């Protein structure tokens, strides 16, 4: 069995180390590296290194450049390029580690629409910078093809899997003025999580329209998706226009995507960042790697 590996280029060490590791494990015959035009210079070195690794393992490496600036641009480029390399029943391993959530969801939608069999993998870093991770938040935008089914006359409800950056959640609430929010708060003691959650609690816990629950955002299994659904009132889909946001660890984007597979009424929303910290993360923690399948 041969697999097409898809990844999203970054300057982070875990990008090149993670993809190299997947190549070394065998079974990959083709590697599609999507990269952002806006960060082409910053990712050039890592892409060069990866090219050498691909040659070493006799793997065909294809680069696909997209522009992150608008949803339309990135969607059009992905929908034009990806079907050239994958088709119905292709086994795809998608390394989501450093993919921004909007192209991540577009890639998942395209692969799903083409009938690919998709596995995903996420590489944890050894640590994150203690400084800011990303900033210069842009306007939230609904994801093309996954904007849900909105009806006038219904009020808005947000389901968010939140991470460290509680200001993003506040931004979302400010923007959409939901009457109800269900917020999954990351559990665990990893990567300074408890102290970061303290700020979160101060802002959101005990707000009457916000229901906060603990959730393992790294677990994107079908069981986790079902447990998320179990947290929500049964009538939520009929009663509200529901918007889903993944603001926490990257695998939570898979969870939210799977939720839209079950509840097509829910739209996915993405808040682009204008700037990422060049020292975003350090190293790679291979034993902790998260992975799973896209099927629900």
């Amino acid at each position, binding site marked *: 069995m041969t697999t097409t590996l898809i990844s999203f280029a970054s300057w982070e060490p875990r990008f090149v180390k993670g993809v190299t590791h997947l190549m070394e494990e065998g079974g990959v015959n083709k590697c599609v590296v999507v990269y952002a035009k806006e960060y082409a210079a910053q990712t050039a070195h890592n892409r060069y290194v990866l090219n050498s690794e691909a040659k070493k393992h006799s793997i065909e490496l294809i680069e696909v450049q997209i522009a992150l600036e608008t949803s339309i641009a990135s969607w059009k480029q992905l929908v034009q390029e990806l079907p050239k390399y994958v088709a119905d029943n292709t086994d795809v391993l998608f390394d989501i580690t450093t993919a921004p959530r909007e192209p991540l969801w577009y890639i998942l939608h395209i692969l799903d629409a083409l009938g690919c069999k998709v596995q995903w993998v996420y590489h944890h870093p050894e640590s994150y910078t203690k400084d800011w991770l990303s900033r210069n938040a842009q*306007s939230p*935008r609904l994801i093309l093809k996954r*904007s849900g089914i909105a*009806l006038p*006359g219904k009020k808005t409800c947000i389901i968010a899997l939140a991470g460290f950056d509680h200001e*993003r959640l506040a931004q979302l609430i400010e923007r*959409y003025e939901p009457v109800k929010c269900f917020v999954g708060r990351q559990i665990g003691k990893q990567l300074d999580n408890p102290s970061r959650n303290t700020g979160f609690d101060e802002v959101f816990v005990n707000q009457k329209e916000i229901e906060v629950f603990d959730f393992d955002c790294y677990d994107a299994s079908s069981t986790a998706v079902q447990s998320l659904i179990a947290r929500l009132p049964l009538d939520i889909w009929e009663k509200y226009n529901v*918007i889903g946001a993944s603001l926490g660890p990257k695998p939570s984007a898979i969870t939210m995507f799977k939720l839209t597979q079950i509840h097509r009424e829910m739209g996915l929303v993405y808040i682009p960042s204008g700037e990422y910290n060049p020292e975003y993360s350090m190293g790679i923690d291979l034993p902790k790697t998260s992975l799973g399948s896209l099927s629900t």
Partner: protein
Amino acid sequence: MNNKTIQSNPFEYDAALNLPAEMLIDWYIEDHNFARILRTTRNVLINGHRGSGKSMMLIYNSLRFQKLRHESKQHEFPPSHVGIYVPCNTPLTHRQDHELMPIGQQVALSEFYFVMAIIEAIAEAFELTSVGFLAEDYAILADEIKIVMPNIVINEPSSIFTQVRRSVKSQLVNLQQSLQQGIVTEVEYNAVSFYSLVAPILSALKRTSVFKNAHFSILIDDAHDLNSHQKRLLNSWLSYRDHSVFSFKVAVAGLRTYNLRTLSGGTVLEGHDYQILDLEQPFQSEESNFAQFAKAVIEQRLAGVGLHDISADDFFPQSPEFEADIAAANVAVTQEYLKEKGWGNPNDLTAEQKKSVRDYVYKYGRAKYFRERKAKANLPTYSGFETLVHLSTGVVRNLLNPCYQMFDTIVSKNGTAPDCIPPRTQSDIVKVKSDEVWGQIRRGLENIVEGCTKEDSDHLCNLLTALGDYFVNRLISHKSEPRILSFIISEAETENMKFLDNLFRIAQQAQLLYIRSGSSKTRGRREDYFTPNRILWPVLGLDVNGQHGRASISSRELVDAARLKKPIKSYTEMYKPSEQLGLML
């Protein structure tokens, strides 16, 4: 009331759409909200900052609330002026899939979404509100609706609006489902236009016995959230001159930057196509509309929790010590002035002289108190209803926010509803709020305000800090207008203004700055003036009550303050302070 456990906080300030209907009706202050203008048959653009009450005004004037008001307050019903509330901050408006299509289809799909939202709003209003239609009225409506919505099935005329809603739902669900499929974007739907669907239904409603003398207002809320095609469509509708059946009342945050182009490339014109209802009103004096409105808001809400006979001034009392200090400062400056002028007994002065004394005291009385506080003194006490009004900077949500916290603090502490909020509690909360705002500015606005970079955030922090220092310096040493807290921009050079416009946009979005329009000293002209949110100033020890007038600061100085942290020095009439002050320089 003292021993009564309180059920709810009267200063709740949630978004209007999220407030319970009864609460909204109880809390709305009709007289001060331009009800007369809303009831014209002309198009109206309502301009207001976030939190200025635009949504509340539109919802209050919508059909469902007109009925509720009839039931609770015996207001006219069926109304002669029917409001149809159409919110735009919805996920349907925020969809962007139309952009995947050629331009003509983008416009058609955008119009479809918008028209469907209006039809849903009409149908919902009449489905949920019994207006007393007769059988022949339903027949008129059914005939028209069958023509404009040919696929609709109407078994029972009285359920016509339910059928319309079902049809809208079904069309929107089918369309959005098809947009979700596959990787190509091709959709089939029955394109509609405002004039092929909405206008005929409104005309049919006007032919019914209930509404034959009525006018319909389509109340478009948050129009700034519409996509660019929808904004141009709406503007095109505004240019339609026949208002015999309907007109639009459109609420926008930031009218000065709102695109007024129509679909055909023309522009809608004030006076010709629409009139403006501006909620961004001046608020400086106690007699201002906003001050009166604020008083009515607070007193109506207090009455709602059983505190009927308490005035806003009694519920938020001024600190007696502060009051006495200000009185003493006023007496001192009066004496100074009388001595300077060589005037004797104040009672013997002419009317003109008395006015001159009053003006002098207005300018320098409070200033003297703030100037002569000792360097090591604590911050002044910020209490009293008038102070809270000034702190709000003319935005009702800014008024309610600290009041909510104050009320909550007392209830948490005592478990009972307070008869008043002690000055100390008021002042503590004001200072905490002021600290919080500066804390957020210093942490950065780049994760809060859309399109704000770290650099923008740093520049804005520098600018607000410089403005704070500037106002402090003015208070200490300016000769004629020491307590000014607003400014205009002089020497507005293009490059500087481009830079400042971006910062001001961010500051407005973060509710740190309010831009209003007022008459300028140049005869007959109007000018924009800028007022930083006054909640910024308590931690600096400034007098938040301010005074009439605007400082003139050059665009170059503002840019240098933002970029280079240079102090702003745009004033000339100075006098040397006589002693060290308690102001936080």
